[in-house]
């Protein structure tokens, strides 16, 4: 009896501390560093702080503020989606793709998950003095092939060359516009308790492939990047399931980062069953060896979808009808409390928080 009180008393105090922390987390973000570090590009907390405190602070406008993958513009009655993305992957060539198809698919996917039909892309190249023309040709050929596969045209571009040592071979920026034909309102702010969370296939394959392709780890695995355009899969989903609320492509920072962004934006809790998350054996093995969590590893052809709970099975069936979605799965559900957090029911049968990642285990994977 007395022991019970001893146990209960500190937990009340603990709760006060935890409340204080949550208040601190909600305070306006500030960049404390004097210089940019690699962490600012990791897609985790530091990136979000940089975006909130520097970019959003200066550029603030209603179109930017939702911080979705693509901005929605209404021009002369047409609803357009506009997005941009830069690619600095190292190495430039990896099993399953190269920086070229990555640059096309990445922008196509940002448009697709915002509910738009991708139409036109731009391509900007920053090349390092001495870069082999043969490599550039290979990269550009894969861009054209990827554009053909996604039904988009690359309609304008730009080229800059910098001195040797001032860039790492080749960087590419792409921007894209698409037409939003889907009548409903999509966006992470519309996610609500009761929704189901789906992923369209096994996670982490791109990130692990690129890391192994660097050859620094002396680990070999039979793995290829998952880079692919998801526009058809998304169109299939939107065309048959009315209750789709939001979609994201799980690139830098992986699925866990997306879930955290949604939990914060919609002020809901996301509860994930670890055993339901599809992860290939090679990715699991490499992750166990390296001490990383596949939930935080980038994909380049996987989407995370939030759908009305009553449509979960239909959404799963719709995803599985597309070759890219054969191994899609329902991985969790949205709840009310505790808002802003992602919780994980572990395979082991325990529970824990699955927070935004700090620091970057895998820099420059896209």
């Amino acid at each position, binding site marked *: 009896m007395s022991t019970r009180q001893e146990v209960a008393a500190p937990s009340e105090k*603990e709760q006060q501390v935890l409340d204080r922390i949550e208040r601190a987390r909600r305070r306006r973000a500030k960049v404390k560093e004097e210089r940019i570090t690699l962490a600012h590009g990791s897609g985790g907390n530091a990136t979000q702080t940089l975006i909130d405190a520097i970019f959003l602070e200066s550029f603030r406008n209603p179109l930017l503020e939702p911080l979705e993958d693509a901005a929605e513009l209404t021009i002369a009655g047409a609803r357009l989606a506009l997005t941009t993305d830069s690619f600095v992957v190292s190495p430039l060539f990896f099993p399953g793709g190269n920086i070229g198809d990555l640059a096309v698919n990445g922008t196509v996917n940002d448009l697709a998950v915002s509910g738009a039909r991708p139409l036109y892309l731009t391509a900007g190249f920053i090349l390092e003095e001495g870069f082999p023309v043969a490599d550039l040709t290979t990269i550009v050929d894969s861009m054209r092939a990827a554009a053909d596969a996604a039904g988009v045209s690359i309609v304008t571009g730009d080229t800059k060359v910098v001195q040797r040592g001032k860039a790492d071979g080749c960087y590419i920026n792409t921007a894209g516009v698409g037409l939003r034909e889907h009548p409903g309102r999509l966006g992470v702010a519309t996610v609500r308790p009761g929704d189901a969370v789906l992923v369209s296939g096994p996670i982490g394959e791109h990130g692990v492939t690129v890391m192994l392709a660097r050859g620094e780890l002396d680990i070999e695995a039979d793995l290829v990047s998952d880079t692919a355009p998801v526009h058809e899969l998304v169109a299939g989903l939107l065309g048959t399931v009315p209750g789709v609320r939001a979609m994201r492509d799980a690139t830098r920072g992986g699925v866990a980062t997306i879930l955290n962004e949604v939990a914060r934006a919609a002020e809901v809790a996301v509860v994930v069953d670890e055993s339901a998350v599809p992860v290939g054996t090679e990715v699991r093995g490499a992750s166990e060896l390296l001490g990383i969590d596949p939930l935080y590893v980038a994909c380049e052809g996987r989407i995370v979808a939030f759908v009305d709970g009553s449509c979960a099975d239909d959404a799963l069936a719709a995803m599985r009808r597309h070759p890219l979605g054969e191994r899609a799965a329902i991985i969790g559900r949205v709840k009310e409390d505790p808002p802003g957090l992602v919780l994980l029911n572990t395979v*082991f049968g325990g529970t824990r928080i699955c927070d935004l990642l700090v620091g970057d285990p895998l820099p420059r994977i896209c």
Partner: protein
Amino acid sequence: MRFVDEFRDADKARALSAKITSLCEPGREYKFMEVCGGHTHTIYKHGLEDYLPENITLIHGPGCPVCVIPMGRIDDAIHIARRPGVLMTSFGDMMRVPGSGGNFFDSNAEGTNIRMVYSPLDSLKIARQNPDQQVVFMAIGFETTAPSTAMTVLRAAKEGIENFSVFCNHITIIPAIKAILDSPDLRLDGFIGPGHVSTVIGCRPYEFIASDYGKPIVVAGFEPLDILQSIYMLMLQLKEGRSEVENQYSRVVPWEGNLTALRAIAEVMELRPYFEWRGLGFISHSALRMRDKYAKYDAELHYEVPGVRVADPKACQCGEVLKGVLKPWECKVFGTACTPETPIGTCMVSPEGACAAYYNFGRFTRTRVREASIS
């Protein structure tokens, strides 16, 4: 996946949990320290505390090498890295450990070249690729990583690599455990012994814990069922009035340790008279330095290091957390001024640090998380 899934079986965990609970004496509180940061990480990552009855508390020990490195040594490392022509290498965990003027990432943003490596041997590869640079490996870790540093030095000597040296910060686990046992403000019922360190040093060095201090210790593996079984073995020892060294991790840990690894350490390194541990202060014979025979590879001799002792920030209570006197959340700056992004104390840096593990994985009270995930 074989060799992983077997050790994460929820049914077996439930069965062990019931056996542990049945060994609890009503009204008695049990406190066990997991010495190793790898265990702390496993405990939080898998939500292992959900399986423990409320009167068993796990205290997170000092076995996270990143957590116990004093600020002054980080400053020394950055001082070396700033010398022209120096390319420093270190383990990824080190990159975010704050020195008095920032961490390695900040230092790189200001012009140093400090790179992450997965193995000390990678530093030799880098040294061969950059013959015009002096490659300095910032070595940290317990007896777990000291053999690979030693092997790297031996290989450098064999291959005649001239542009490589080691800034040695290796520490030893036994003096730290002894310091904790001698700490007056802590009452422990037993230890979950460090598995990785024990693959090198074996189980014999822990015998004083059982014989002189009368505490049970079970050397444990790193999968969640390993830890749960070790807690069961500790509870059984207490129930039966025993205090012994037991080896739960016998599939990896030989009782006598790894003699080849120990010989490599002994060949290259020797004990320092004393070394500063963050939070624990100076502990005698608790760290390793390069032997004179390998002075050529000793960065501390090549480069003058300031060696200034930097006091921990006043608000930081890492010392109390490392000794298990405070739970992470009881620290005054936990989660507000000190977070994984902007750590004040080292315990918030490494994913194996008690504060970082608690902040990332266990921040909410267990009941609230459980209610949300079950209902």
